[in-house]
């Protein structure tokens, strides 16, 4: 076998394997994303300005930065699927979707929506001063758990879901 053919073979092999590798990677990422959506805490902090929600939301990650990213995703996820609990001086906020199973019904859409740096980022405004600190930054087994103060653009998020045809508008049918 001459040199040229060897190189060609290697290149072909890489081309065949690479997409699978990245696919495997993203599958792992998706799995991790789904797992983190299963378990997070979110609380309402106070009644926010019109059309928005002000929450404190937790995220977990191997590194602090990853935990922060996850907390941001969780804030949006909570508004979409979980709803926000009320507090003494703020009523609870219902989820935009009626059930968490809506995530699975539109899985491709939401996997893309929640890709790191994806569209979810348009609907949040982090008000944490700098990085999470004090008791909002906890070292846990295998990583960090952090809390972020986040303003979620709830109305915009709802409009988006309505525009994308995933939820009905209040006036639909009339």
């Amino acid at each position: 076998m001459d040199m040229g053919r060897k190189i060609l073979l290697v290149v072909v092999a890489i081309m065949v394997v690479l997409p699978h590798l990245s696919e495997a990677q993203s599958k792992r990422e998706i799995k991790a994303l789904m797992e983190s959506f299963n378990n997070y805490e979110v609380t309402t902090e106070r009644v926010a300005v019109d059309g928005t929600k002000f929450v404190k939301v937790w995220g977990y990650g191997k590194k602090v930065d990853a935990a922060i990213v996850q907390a941001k995703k969780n804030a949006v996820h909570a508004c979409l699927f979980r709803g926000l609990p009320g507090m003494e001086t703020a009523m609870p906020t219902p989820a935009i979707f009626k059930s968490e199973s809506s995530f699975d019904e539109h899985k491709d859409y939401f996997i893309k929506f929640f890709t790191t740096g994806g569209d979810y980022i348009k609907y949040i405004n982090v008000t944490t001063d700098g990085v999470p600190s004090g008791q909002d930054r906890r070292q846990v087994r295998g990583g960090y758990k952090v809390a972020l103060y986040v303003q979620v653009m709830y109305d915009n998020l709802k409009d988006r879901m309505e525009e994308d045809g995933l939820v009905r508008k209040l006036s639909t049918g009339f």
Partner: protein
Amino acid sequence: MKRAVIIFLALIVTFGALSGQAKRPTIMVVPSDAWCERNHYVQEFESYGEVTMVPDYEKALRRSSEIRLLISYLADFMAKEEFPIQSLESVLKNIKSEESDVVSITSSESGAMIIESPIDELRRVAKPDIILDIDYQVKRKGPRKQVSFNLTAYDAYTSKIISGNTGVGSSVNAPVETLLEEAVLSFKDNFLSGLQNHFDDMFENGREVVVTMRRFDMADHTFDEEFDYQGDAVELADLIDLWFSENTVNGRYSLNERTQDVLKFEQVRIPLYGKNIAGRDVAIDTRGFVRPLVKMLKDEPYYIPVTVYQKGLGEVWLIIGEE
């Protein structure tokens, strides 16, 4: 196969377009009785010789900038949801101009004038589908103020509560306007979701109404009179019952009272759409719903005269034996 799918889809689309749209429910905000009483926006009201205090909405709207503000906050976000709120102010004006017509609403049965309370009057003139009953209180706590609120949305047809929202706002030293706005923002989404659930239920199970059938004293017919139905002798009440089971959404209704003089159908789920006289699909109301029943009773083989009275929005009375 593919063609079949396309045709099927096309059919659905056409059907959807043809079926038209249900009448968009109208919503009205009304200050609660408790609020009016606390703030002395009440007037004396005489009903059958008994004097009671009833809300004076006109005075409330004229004097309380807070309630006007609250209504406008609510109107704002409802407008965004494409549900313009009926203006209580203009409804009140209409009532004034119609005052003389009240006399015309009399029962031909007794000849007595029907005396309406202000809220009944409002419902009759404005015909709102949903009434938002709002109550709030600003409590002074030393230098701080705190708003407690209670917004109840109820179905004007059935008086059933669609969404109840009770809570308190921040206890701070801030202008009352800010606190009221905070209260509205606090319950807004919970309220909207209650409304959405109500509409979803309506689309799925129809609108809920009450149909009461009575017998005019002098009538020749009773509800236990027997008629021939496919060879069998069946009581009129059973025939009417059968009609309800055929014409309600998913056959949902309940016959709560059955005597020879009275039939009372409650939790009657009527479809949002029906056929008008011309046979076209339109949104229907309670009266429209019972029209075929009335026609059936008047026709062969029954020939029973029926008079229809609309009582509020969600209830009709059918009196048999009188026309």
